[in-house]
């Protein structure tokens, strides 16, 4: 990935960044750029001349970041010059990336040359100090491939100060923005996990000392021979920017302070994990087998022992397979690990399967309910949010190249094309995304997902042919727009006894009522698929998976039934079904044709699902055969070795 291309300013040498680097750098850049928003006099006027489409990293945050790298001031000046920021007067993406690369080089001990950045370098390390040692994590730079911690500028500020005063504390902020994959946007994620560390930091936060800055400035000028230029100016403005940014951060920190924040799965993350789960295993209540999970997690590029340990932590029942909560826990641990958190000794309480089950009991299931509907929605949200962030980061999707290649290869193709089409369309639909149906979701959504999540979700989240998801799950976090919108108004009505579209999944917590009511109203209403709906409605809660064919039909029915319901007055549950039936009758006739089409669509979908499953089946059979052969070979070996007793 050419960072130079993104910058729109080809002043720097072409940069070849690895995926991890690209991701990390773009995150950092976004952070610095984001912080530039409110900064007074953000940089010199040159900053205003930032290349269109490329944000400019405010010099304030950038300076903080650089200082957090704990390099000597002279080195930082050199870097600033080399990266071209001085020349152009602002930190565009190109300059920023080059600077980061130079920092990495400096930390690795390489000379400060442009050539140094051509080679493979570990990620630059940015240290942040902590006021207390409560949260201390090992130097994550040890891990190859781990992302650099997004240096929170408050802490950087403190670090800078402390660097002069205290020993360099190798403490790192607990809040690593999840660069690896999960969907939480950096600010949002920062907010949550950081709170603890920040609450401490805040108490000790002091304003940046402009003095060191000024001290550096004289250095800057004499040092600016080759490039010269306004490098000093960005530095000068950083002080004010830093302050403003720190205030920003403090405000954010006020929200929460959980001690085990790094291990708490946010809503977005949870959703992302669920999507990933579903991409591997369409049935959210079933298991992901060990081998599938292994392939998937191996792509995270963590070392095998670590993955093994993560598995150990997350597979609570040690059955060799991951249920959804286990999978979420494992995924979360991986994410945390990739962001530098050391793995815990035991599974944190917030990652326990029971906890996860309780915390996210049903809402996630409904995502599965509306597979075909829901996927574009998250993509919408994510895209919208992503647009706010660095656009470059879209390409940074890294660590989880689609894991299900062997499983859903063809589907992926379809998905990709679908998502690609969805991309431009979604961008324009940002405002139209129906998150308003779920305020809870809307808020986290606005945080913006990290880049990886978007692409990955798009890649993997879309699995059209999956058997329609469980009916009984509540729709509280409805990701499906239309249907949820359709539902939401009907929920109150249905709760009073009117069944939500009877054949449809009764997502609402008024299941029993609606079931009984639905049965009564069902028959008259739905002539087309009465039997199916009837049997499914009472059983929908009990046997969610037993009626896949009927589900899509039900789904289609819903809108019609919606209209039907709206026309009907709310009827009591056991009330006169006949009364209810009278009204729907006329409408039923109209809907029959629609139902037919719905059925046909459902049939088509099911056929596709069948094809996919058949393919999967054959592949698994193949694997089974191979395993059998291996086993036979091993047994043969055993037999050969057995009779020989060593004396």
């Amino acid at each position, binding site marked *: 990935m050419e960072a130079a291309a993104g910058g729109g300013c080809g002043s720097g040498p072409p940069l070849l960044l690895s995926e991890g680097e690209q991701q990390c750098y773009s995150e950092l850049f976004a952070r610095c750029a984001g912080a530039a928003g409110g900064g007074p006099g953000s940089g010199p006027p040159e900053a205003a001349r930032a290349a269109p489409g490329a944000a400019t990293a405010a010099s304030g945050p950038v300076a903080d970041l650089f200082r957090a790298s704990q390099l000597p001031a002279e080195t930082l000046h050199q870097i600033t010059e080399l990266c071209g920021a001085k020349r152009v007067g602002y930190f565009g993406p190109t300059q920023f990336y080059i600077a980061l690369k130079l920092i990495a080089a400096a930390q690795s001990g390489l000379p400060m040359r442009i050539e140094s950045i051509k080679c493979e370098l570990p990620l630059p390390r940015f240290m942040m100090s902590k006021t207390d040692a409560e949260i201390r994590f090992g130097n994550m730079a040890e891990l190859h491939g781990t992302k650099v911690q997004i240096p929170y500028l408050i802490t950087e500020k403190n670090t800078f100060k402390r660097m002069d005063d205290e020993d360099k504390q190798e403490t790192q902020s607990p809040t690593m923005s999840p660069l690896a994959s999960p969907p939480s946007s950096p600010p949002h994620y920062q907010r949550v996990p950081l709170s603890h560390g920040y609450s401490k930091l805040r108490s000790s936060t002091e304003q940046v000392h402009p003095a060191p800055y000024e001290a550096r400035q004289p250095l800057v000028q004499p040092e600016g021979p080759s490039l010269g230029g306004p490098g000093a100016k960005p530095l000068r403005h950083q002080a004010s920017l830093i302050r403003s940014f720190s205030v920003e951060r403090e405000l954010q920190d006020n929200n929460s302070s959980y001690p085990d924040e790094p291990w708490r799965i946010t809503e977005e993350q949870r959703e992302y994990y669920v999507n990933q789960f579903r991409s591997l295993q369409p049935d959210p209540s079933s298991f992901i*087998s060990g081998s599938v999970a292994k392939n998937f997690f191996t792509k995270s590029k963590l070392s095998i022992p670590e993955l093994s340990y993560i598995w150990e932590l997350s597979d609570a029942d*040690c059955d060799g397979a991951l249920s959804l909560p286990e999978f979420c826990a494992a995924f979360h641990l991986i994410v945390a690990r990739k962001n530098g958190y050391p793995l815990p000794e035991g599974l944190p309480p917030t990652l326990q399967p029971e906890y996860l089950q309780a915390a996210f009991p049903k809402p996630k299931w409904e995502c599965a309910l509306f597979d075909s509907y829901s996927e574009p929605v998250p993509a919408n949200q994510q895209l919208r949010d992503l647009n706010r962030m660095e656009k470059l980061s879209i390409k940074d999707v890294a660590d989880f190249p689609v894991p299900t290649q062997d499983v859903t290869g063809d589907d992926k193709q379809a998905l990709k094309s679908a998502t690609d089409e969805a991309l431009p369309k979604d961008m324009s639909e940002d405002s139209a995304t129906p998150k308003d149906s779920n305020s809870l979701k809307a808020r986290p959504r606005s945080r913006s997902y990290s880049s990886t999540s978007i692409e990955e979700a798009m890649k993997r989240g879309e699995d059209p042919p999956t058997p329609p998801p469980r009916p009984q799950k509540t729709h509280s976090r409805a990701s499906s727009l239309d249907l949820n919108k359709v539902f939401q108004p009907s929920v109150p009505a249905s709760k009073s006894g009117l069944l939500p579209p009877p054949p449809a999944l009764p997502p609402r917590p008024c299941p029993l009522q609606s079931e009984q009511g639905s049965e009564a109203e069902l028959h008259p209403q739905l002539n087309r698929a009465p039997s199916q709906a009837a049997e499914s409605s009472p059983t929908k809660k009990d046997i969610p998976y037993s009626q896949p064919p009927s589900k899509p039909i039900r789904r289609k029915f819903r809108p019609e039934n919606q209209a039907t319901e709206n026309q009907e007055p709310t009827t009591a549950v056991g009330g006169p079904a006949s009364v209810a039936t009278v009204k729907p009758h006329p409408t039923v006739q109209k809907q029959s044709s629609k139902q037919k089409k719905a059925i046909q669509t459902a049939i088509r979908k099911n056929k596709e699902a069948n094809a996919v499953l058949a393919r999967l089946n054959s592949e698994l059979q193949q694997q089974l055969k191979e395993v059998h052969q291996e086993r036979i070979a091993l047994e043969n070996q055993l037999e050969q070795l057995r009779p020989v*007793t060593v004396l």
Partner: protein
Amino acid sequence: MGWILVASAAVILFLQNYPLYIRSVPTENELKFHYMVHTSLDVVDEKISAMGKALVDQRELYLGLLYPTEDYKVYGYVTNSKVKFVMVVDSSNTALRDNEIRSMFRKLHNSYTDVMCNPFYNPGDRIQSRAFDGMVTSMMIQVC
């Protein structure tokens, strides 16, 4: 074929007569434990072949005084996949009864299967599961 040697303790888990897992509480004399285990491996093999086609059951290898000079009892246990667990305990630990040894082996076996369930674990690798370590540690603490 793996071996676990638990002594007073040393634990060595062997696969095909090379160790999968070794742990001993008094960390000195580990070599001695290794030696003992290797000799006991032969005895275990004999017993296995003697059993013929019979299913491998929980088994005990009570050697008594393997070396007259040292009071050690070496217990053995073989799983269905021919993974051998060897436990060496101090004879001075007279409190240890047979059923206790059996229960310890059962626990070892359970932990081992948990390790096997981990898809990232390749059979034949050294066992690095922390859960397994913890279990063995607790067991050995209990014994000693």
